[in-house]
């Protein structure tokens, strides 16, 4: 079975997305949920690079630009998410998602 590189890249990225989804849904530790979301973001970046490399020709650096900005937004998201986790931990003394169910501070 011989596949072209582009479908292989896309399958790789879908598998990574599925893994991140499983991690984000199955775990009850907030840090692991955030890491699952990071994996899904990374899978989207893989798609950008795969289509930039093998897709129809565009202007030279379009896919690279997209991934650069995407990585920057993902970094900001990770910083804010982990700060939220620390803030929740200070109020509730736990980072299990099931136990962080009060709206009152």
């Amino acid at each position, binding site marked *: 079975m011989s*596949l*072209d*590189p*582009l*479908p*292989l*890249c*896309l399958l*790789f990225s*879908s*598998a*990574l*997305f*599925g*893994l991140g*989804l*499983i*991690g984000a*849904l*199955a*775990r*009850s*530790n907030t*840090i*692991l949920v955030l*890491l699952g979301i*990071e*994996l899904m973001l*990374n899978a989207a*970046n*893989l798609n950008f*690079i*795969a289509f930039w*490399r*093998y*897709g*129809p*020709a*565009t202007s*030279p*650096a379009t*896919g*690279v*630009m997209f*991934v*650069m900005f995407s*990585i*920057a*937004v*993902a*970094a*900001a998201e*990770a910083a*804010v998410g*982990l*700060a*939220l*986790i620390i*803030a929740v931990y200070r109020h509730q003394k736990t980072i*299990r998602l099931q136990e962080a169910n009060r709206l009152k501070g």
Partner: protein
Amino acid sequence: MTAALVLIAVFTLATAAVALSLRNLIHSALLLIASWFGIAAFYLWAGAEFVAFAQVLVYVGAVSMVVLFAVLLTRRSRADTVIGPDSVARAISAVITGVAVFGVLGVAILKTSFGRLSPADVPPLPGGTGVSSVISAPTATVRDIGIQLMSTHAAALLIIGILLTVALLGAVVLAAQEGPESKHESP
């Protein structure tokens, strides 16, 4: 060429899968760093060197440190990095959901013929065939990226700078310890 891709994919997926199934948070974080390295290797394989180095700098260097700090700041005792078991029913339904999403995406990918899409959309080059421009890899040197960042995408670069500043300030405000003097500050 394809063998290297399969190798990178297997390494990345295996480390990510093991990382998301472990009980020890430190081990999970370290394995996820290995997985991010695998993704950087994929970028190198695809010829996007600058993105690969950005991935190593941002994920392997910065996000991993933030994650490790969060793990260490949110434990109650020295041995509290091992978390209790999660609910099995949720894990099973999560695996079903994830496999279903991967199945739908995989079938969609395998049913699509990408080869027909690429050469038809490319206008034939003068003195060459249109196909060759698709086969040959696009190149984006650091010089090209810099020029594009400063000309075409200058506004986006400024906006991303503002976004990063605001997000990191917000993170500091959210995570800052409320000292005893902050209780009676003026509203």
